[in-house]
């Protein structure tokens, strides 16, 4: 319920600052004594991976993404609604797919515990979904995941260098790629991934040597570190159709890789607490390989018995 309200608010607002997002998040997901609070960064990353929002972490701004109906690859002809979901759009979608309006389309809403409902449209022809999108005034695309996948490049190539390391008296920590944990950091900058806070936002810097500093987002810097020590943590399990891509929960996929993986099924990745990984469903093998290559990971592929 709260995730749906959050997505509605994001859609009706259109765009805003990180502090707007954090304030609303705090109200929708109040802390409970003794329980780990819902982290607004995780929520924003999850919404971004599902293609609902785009977040500019450096500027502290977000905007809802344009709504798109996209057919999932190898998913028995199901389209999923990605991006903005204003109440007006939802009402029109419900009306256009009602029993008295069509025999060819069926609206199916899948409630998720830690994400907004996934809104699917079952069809027997992509042209019906195309026509539906046109009638709603939104975009249609067959398998957005595949198209986004074609844009994946090695994360090391997306780094933006900055002239000097940050100056801050706030807490600074260095990430340990072996334990996947943050440790207090002090003194000279070493090769590795650092984080510190400024203006309420966590900032990350990656040092390739003591003086070369890059502005990164955490997952990008983390996979750079894993690549540096040749640690392969991403795996893939084939199924009859496509397969499941797994990544450690402590090292989420970078935004574009996460979106490619999530939009193969349209549902939020499942968290397997027992082994500490998140699982993306219905990822075609070629996309899983592209994601792994872009992260510098040697993909471990498990074939079905």
């Amino acid at each position, binding site marked *: 319920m709260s995730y749906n309200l959050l997505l509605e608010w994001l859609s009706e607002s259109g765009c805003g600052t990180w502090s707007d997002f954090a304030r609303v998040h705090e109200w929708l997901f109040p802390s409970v004594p*003794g329980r780990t609070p819902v982290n607004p960064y995780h929520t924003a990353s999850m919404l971004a991976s599902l293609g609902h929002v785009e977040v500019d972490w450096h500027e502290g701004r977000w905007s809802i*993404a344009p*709504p798109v109906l996209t057919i999932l690859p190898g*998913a028995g002809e199901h389209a999923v609604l990605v991006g903005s979901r204003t109440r*007006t759009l939802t009402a029109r979608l419900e009306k256009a797919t009602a029993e008295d309006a069509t025999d060819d389309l069926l609206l199916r809403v899948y409630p998720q515990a830690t994400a907004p409902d996934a809104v699917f449209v079952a069809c027997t022809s992509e042209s019906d979904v195309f026509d539906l999108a046109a009638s709603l005034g939104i975009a249609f695309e067959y398998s957005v995941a595949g198209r986004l996948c074609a*844009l994946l490049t090695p994360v090391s190539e997306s780094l933006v260098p900055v002239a000097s390391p940050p100056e801050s008296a706030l807490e600074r920590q260095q990430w340990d790629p072996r334990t996947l944990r943050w440790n207090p950091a002090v003194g000279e900058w070493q090769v590795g991934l650092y984080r510190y806070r400024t203006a309420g936002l966590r900032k990350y810097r990656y040092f390739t040597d003591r003086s070369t500093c890059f502005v990164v987002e955490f997952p990008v810097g983390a996979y750079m570190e894993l690549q540096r020590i040749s640690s392969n943590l991403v795996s893939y399990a084939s199924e009859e159709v496509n397969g499941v891509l797994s990544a450690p929960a402590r090292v989420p996929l970078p935004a574009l890789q996460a979106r490619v993986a999530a939009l193969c099924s349209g549902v939020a990745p499942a968290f397997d607490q027992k082994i500490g990984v998140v699982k993306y469903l219905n990822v075609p093998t070629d996309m899983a390989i592209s994601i792994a290559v872009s992260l510098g990971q040697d993909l471990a592929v498990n074939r079905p018995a």
Partner: protein
Amino acid sequence: MTYNDWSSALRERYFVPENAGLPVTFFVDDDTIAEISGEASHEEAVRNFSKRVHGQLIHAADENPFQLIETRAADWERGGWQGDPPSLALLAACVLAATRMARTGRISTNNYYVPFWGVIGLPRSAARMRGYSDSIPWLWQQLAKWLDGVQQGGLGKSTITPHPTWTVIGYSLSQALFRRSDRDKLFRFFQWFGLKPGSAFDARELLAYYRLWTVNSNLSAGAKRMAEDPGFEPQLLNLLDDLAKSWDGGTIDELGRREAQIHVALDFSEQALGTLWLLAERPGRTPEEVEVRDGGGDPIRLRSQHAGWFDQDLITLKTGSLDRGLALTGEGLSLKLTPSPVYVLAEDDSVGFYTSQSKTESRREYFVLAKADLENRLDAYLTRHAAAGWQAHRPSNLPTGWLARRRVSIAAPPMQEVPPELAILIPAPQQRPSLWGGLPLPSGRSVYLLGGEPELLVPPGIVDLIPEVTVDGQVVAVPQSGLDLELRSLGLSAGLHEVIAGPTSLRFSTIASIERVVAECCGSVTAPVGSGRPYPRPIGPDLGIRVSGAVLSGDPSLLPPTVHPPFILPRGRQRYLLLGSRPGQIIELAEPKPPSWLRRIPLFPVAFETQTDYAVIWMLMYSHRGKWEARLRVETPPNPVPSESATKDGVQTWARVFLEDSVELPRAHQELWDSYRQVAQNLEVGVSG
């Protein structure tokens, strides 16, 4: 000092450019007179002052004693208001009498006139009383006119106000109850109220909370009396309105010095676990660099780097500073670390350190410093009321006898009693009712999404002032412990809503939707994609390809091509045939099992996909009814030339389909079907119907 010297001295003390825009009370008591005269003896000073005023009066018992001063004042006005007001010393005598009466705590006409005639050294008579009524109110009004009209508040704004009951002596009373020090204390009231400099406020609401605040304040008895007397309401409203509008957020101490806090600061720039310092605020209108002295008289130089802070020079934390606090004083400046058994430190963006805070907000993350003997009580409190994840911490220079905890976030105000030493860890709401949270929309001020109405918070302890609140007329009682009302639980409809909570009125509106498919700035944040290297093909960041959710933008020739949709077939048939326009273009399929993840969700696929290396024109499905059903996919005429990859068997199978008589197809497609049948019949591959 002559009478005119007194008038000038009084003007220079009260009505000066430093008071521009600020409400000024002409509060004159025995101490003031002594200070201005410079005499050691109060009695002597007042005697000399009275003598000078007495000298300007007409002494005949049957005449208006103030006629001479009134005439001079009228001439002063006619002459263009040159020089100091000639009435000032006489009006000061009026206030002096009123302050003496106020000290007795009993206001009455008689209690005023007895000291008044005594101060000016004339016995009371009927003519003199008439003279007072004729002249003194007019002189007060003239002074007000000079301050607000002629000077336009440039020397301070008048607080001279008539009183509905004390019509004659009320003017003097209006200046005798509220001292300069009372005015300075109002800044603390503004802080208590939660007023922000420059923010909008309602003076009537401010007055209602002022009356509540005065009860436990250290305002003078006169100021408290003034707050209780409805007759002074207009004056207090003006006073609060003027002062709140011009307030810069600072406070002033008993000695008239601008005061500011010294904070405990945690700095991670040199030590991994952080170092504790003391960090002083820099009040407004204070120089960027000051010299202050500690209790031992040792000088400390403080310089400012960031607005509002003396942050270029951190103050070393000495043994005992956390226990006993610290006071630093300088020219017109007082800096204080108020000692506390518990300090809460939060990230402060304005200065870049973690700094100690005066109160805790729920759900915000803090470092906590506490006396070591509170360890068990603190940890028990955090276990019960804080979100999971808090931990022990040890800054490098943590003083002996103190402990630290990090990542402390109090989830909600505790309902149980809390040890008084830990009171700072109780999230403190504002002092007045307010709206919190909700889903505010950028459509306008206080507009919320329907179903995302904010919460109404009424702090504890003001139930006398606010016994109940109304929401659109619906009455809700306020318990002693305060109120946290989820307005969305009231099922309010879209539209304008009003909450009345005592003197506070809060309005907001809700809308169900922006009535559009997308909001105006939808898609305004985009992420660049690509890299500088040719991998897997050149997609450089400089090429301007950007993504927003599932939408790509940029030069269409550089964007990845749209994925070719596969062929889609409905489930539930026994066999499927897909035919192209050329003989031999045919494949037969069976329905595959649905993907396992769909079953887990569960979704029930009604179709499946397949890829062909030719364009499918006809799709034939064999149903359980034992019939072939044909569907036209793309209206394309047949090409009689077999495809290059076609086998003889393939061509035969392709042709046989079109020669089949029992295929069901829509009447509209019969003509095209027949043209395919014609091609099939003409094929020289030995097929037959």
